């Protein structure tokens, strides 16, 4: 592939020969402002090489050429956003741009995944996984968000292997809130504490659906009531999976008031709905009103003991009983769907589109865009002991991740927003998440990050809650108005966050820029670098200079207007 670009001709397996014009232009442009080295570099990492080859194979098969590499500034910005949830500071950016090492990208990634950034890494992935595990709705009183976050922060701080992570969440027992007067705190319980009961019926239906969806990429919620109309899901499979949660109870503790104060997740012997704990069954209703029986059977057909007893030992020393959730976690871990689901989710996080849409719906009814790559990466992820940081490293150092988001004539049809299957010939645009915007504004304004920890997290939660829409269903479905619509723009125009970020108070960011000894042009450039990771274009500098001139000596007011515009731009909020 490198040879193909070098001689300006790229042979395409479909029989046509395309001039690699885009590639040529890319290389020329690269000399000016992007990396001058090969974007398909794999830094000696075999998994990166594998990704590059697999994705390039897809380009060949569909007669597409990749876009040239993103500029260093663009790449630096996106890798900060995707790995640690914020844009780079000016210093971080400048030091990356000044670095001439051919392996500087690999080095930056090692830094971002290393000890220096471990808190930010953990914070970002805590944000991501809080949404995955318990949604954005803050009103579920059976969920303690702060407990969930504490657990996740700890897990991501030490880069807990993903299989361990899943096991801890699926088998969690204990108290969901971290309070001095309570014993047995386990924040991981918050994944299931709000999903055990619906309308007063403790049946673990949501626990079943979410566990399958998140950890296996399996959408089973429809099969609660009937066989799935267009995938292979059968109603019995739902209830057989559900049977794994029937030893589990979420005890609501009221602590003297009507409100639920905390939840204790416990496992107890399950007597079965027929009253025989040796074969503890449950019953579910078919659409025709008939009742059917179900015992714990995993989605691949593996049966476990029907006993409802927890493991124990009889007086004569015979062991009996089974811990159903522990069995479930072991079965999930062994399933090929388990690493595939996380690879697909992670790929979607970094590359803008998963191999399937939605990312948590795998199966024959929804074939992936790159089946071989998905399977191959999943195997490699398992071989690497489920190391999430390694997976992230492979993806951000891959060729598709290094590409410009600017499409070319040779790949403009590769647009998944048009319903096409993604080919990853260029970097797909996506809007920052609300959490990323929040952190990026703090970075851009060099805000004091001293106020961290739970207090800061609560402040952020309050701010985020303005975007949440709850749908009023038992399943706690929610969505966000942080979706590029008018309320979001109004918030960016006029909200308190932006008022603070564009404040001119003494010692604040704008004040420091304005009162520095830099020229006006350099001041404007500082704003651009801080927010957009690039210098202003000539036309932009012209308009900005006019604003400074119109304000006569009042530079800070002019800078405030420029800064407001920069922060409100598409380029700022769209990862590109």
């Amino acid at each position, binding site marked *: 592939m490198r040879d193909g670009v070098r001689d300006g001709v790229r042979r395409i397996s479909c029989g046509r020969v395309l001039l690699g014009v885009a590639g040529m232009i890319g290389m020329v442009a690269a000399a000016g402002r992007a990396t001058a080295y090969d974007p398909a570099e794999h830094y000696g990492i075999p998994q990166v090489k594998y990704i590059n080859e697999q994705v390039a194979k897809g380009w060949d098969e569909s007669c597409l050429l990749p876009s040239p590499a993103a500029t260093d500034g663009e790449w630096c910005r996106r890798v900060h956003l995707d790995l640690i949830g914020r844009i780079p500071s000016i210093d971080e950016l400048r030091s990356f741009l000044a670095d001439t090492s051919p392996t500087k990208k690999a080095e930056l990634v090692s830094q971002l995944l290393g000890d220096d950034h471990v808190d930010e890494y953990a914070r970002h992935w805590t944000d991501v996984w809080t949404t995955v595990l318990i949604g954005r709705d803050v009103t579920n009183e059976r969920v303690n968000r702060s407990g969930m976050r504490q657990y996740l922060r700890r897990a991501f701080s030490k880069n807990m292997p993903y299989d361990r992570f899943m096991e801890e969440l699926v088998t969690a027992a204990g108290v969901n809130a971290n309070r001095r007067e309570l014993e047995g705190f386990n924040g991981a319980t918050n994944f299931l504490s709000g999903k055990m009961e*619906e*309308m*007063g*019926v403790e049946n673990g239906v949501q626990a079943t659906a979410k566990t399958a969806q998140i950890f296996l990429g399996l959408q089973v*919620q*429809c099969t609660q*009531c009937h066989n799935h*109309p267009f995938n292979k899901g059968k109603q019995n499979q739902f209830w057989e999976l559900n049977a794994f949660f029937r030893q589990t109870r979420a005890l609501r503790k009221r602590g003297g008031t009507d409100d639920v104060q905390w939840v204790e997740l416990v496992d107890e012997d399950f007597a079965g709905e027929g009253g025989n704990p040796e074969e503890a069954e449950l019953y579910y*209703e078919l659409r025709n009103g008939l009742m059917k029986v179900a015992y714990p059977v995993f989605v691949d057909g593996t049966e476990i003991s029907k006993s409802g007893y927890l493991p124990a030992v009889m007086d004569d020393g015979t062991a009996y009983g089974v811990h159903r959730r522990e069995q479930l976690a072991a079965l999930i871990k062994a399933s090929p769907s388990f690493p595939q689901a996380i690879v697909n989710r992670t790929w979607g996080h970094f590359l803008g589109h998963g191999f*399937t849409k*939605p990312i948590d*719906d795998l199966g024959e009814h*929804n074939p992936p865009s790159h089946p071989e790559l998905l399977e191959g990466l999943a195997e490699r992820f398992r071989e690497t002991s489920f190391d999430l940081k390694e997976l992230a490293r492979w993806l951000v150092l891959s060729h598709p991740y290094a590409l410009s*988001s*600017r*499409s070319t004539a040779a790949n*403009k049809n590769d*647009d998944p*927003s*048009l*319903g096409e299957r993604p080919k990853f010939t260029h970097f*797909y*645009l996506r*809007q920052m998440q609300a959490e990323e915007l929040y952190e990026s504004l703090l970075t851009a304004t060099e805000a004091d990050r001293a106020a961290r920890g739970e207090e800061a997290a609560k402040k952020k939660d309050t701010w985020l809650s303005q975007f949440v*829409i*709850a*749908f*009023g*269903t038992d*399943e706690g*479905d929610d*969505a966000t*108005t942080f979706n*590029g*619509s*008018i*309320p979001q*723009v*109004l*918030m960016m*125009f*006029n*909200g308190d966050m932006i008022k603070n970020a564009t404040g001119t108070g003494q010692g604040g960011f704008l004040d420091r820029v304005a009162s520095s000894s830099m020229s006006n042009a350099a001041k404007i450039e500082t704003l651009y670098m801080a927010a957009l990771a690039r210098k202003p*274009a000539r*036309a*932009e500098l012209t*308009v900005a200079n006019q*604003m400074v001139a119109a304000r006569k000596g009042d530079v800070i007011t002019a800078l405030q*207007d*420029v800064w*407001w*515009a*920069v922060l*409100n*731009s*598409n*380029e700022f*909020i*769209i990862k*590109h």
Partner: protein
Amino acid sequence: MSCSIELPAGMSRRHFINHLAGAAALVSPATAFTNSILANATDMKKRHKAAIMLWMGGGPSSMDIWDLKPGAPTGGPFKPISTSADGVTVCEHMPLMAKQMHHMAVVRSMSTREADHMRGRYYMHTGYVPNPNVEHPSYGAVIAHELADQVPGLEIPPFVSVGSGSVGPGFLGMTWAPFVVDSNGNVRNLDMGVDPARLAQRMEMLATIEKRFIGERRGASADDHAKVLDKTVKLMTSPQMEAFKVMKEPAEAQERYGKTGFGRGCLMARRLVEMGVPFVEVDLGGWDNHANIFPTLQNQKLPELDKAMSALVEDLADRGMLDDTVVMWMGEFSRTPNINGGGGRDHWARSWSVVVGGGGFKRGVVVGETSSDGKEVVSEAYSSQDLMASVLKSLGVSLETTFTAKNGRPMQIANSGKVIKELFA
């Protein structure tokens, strides 16, 4: 127009416009900002078509509201009462709506297949089942798209959702996204707190950055962002925002609609339609009654619904707006005829009812029939796309309309649903 136009305090609109015109504000010249002030209030008074969707999130048990089965084992405790429409009965806990049924039509023969909340919500809003390759536009986006031209001076979004946000615009683009407000009509962050001249300068700087980024061909979302900016600026300076101020209604009206979120939402919907908004969705959640359904309906859901919906229909009729305004009531599906062990009903899509009225619809009728236990439709069954086609027809929107999805595929409006003929005279 029923409400007076007031300028935002401290801002001269003309002054602002002059500044902004000089800045040649935003990206699309077709939506030149200055056009809008030329449209005066008389334009808005012209008759225009509109639709109000009353969305019952969670899946309401229609056989306890519109299609009662007294005496059947599945029937539940509620009794039917007669209404202002001959031969039409409704639940005894809907006494106020009973007096308005001569304006409405009940379709008792809906039969759908989506009984998952998110899927059903999508299907009933769009007429399409979810498809990973294309996002379809919802009612609000389609109707706003088709009817927006009839009120050229409209500065507030043509698709307003009061409550839980509706379903998005799909391939029609963010221009047609729902504008979500709470039922008090508060729109957050409306005031920038700077003078118009300065806002205009900021917008000029912003437009410069936006244009450059769009010109780099990175994808449609860059362009969409600019379009939404344009709309936001219009909205921030529009006197039409008055329509959201539902608290300015006389106390009597607020009382009649009910001092509930849904009541205020319905009242706001009337004000918005009067202002020219072609589509308003008002959401009432809490219908996912897997347990204790009957006390919940009798004591909470039905009184709230009855008050607000009846007041809305009555007002629209009294003000001569009903001929041009369609009102529709539905959820994502309904609930099982069988009553479960917890005294609730579960998800059910096979046989259920929706209610429509106004526009070109026939009034005071019942369409279709379910079996004596409510488990089957025994007349011709209708789908979401049939309902959508019927609503569009009653608004005068051509069913020949074809959209082009982003992938270039032609998409017939309302998914080629067929009109429910009994709904038309």
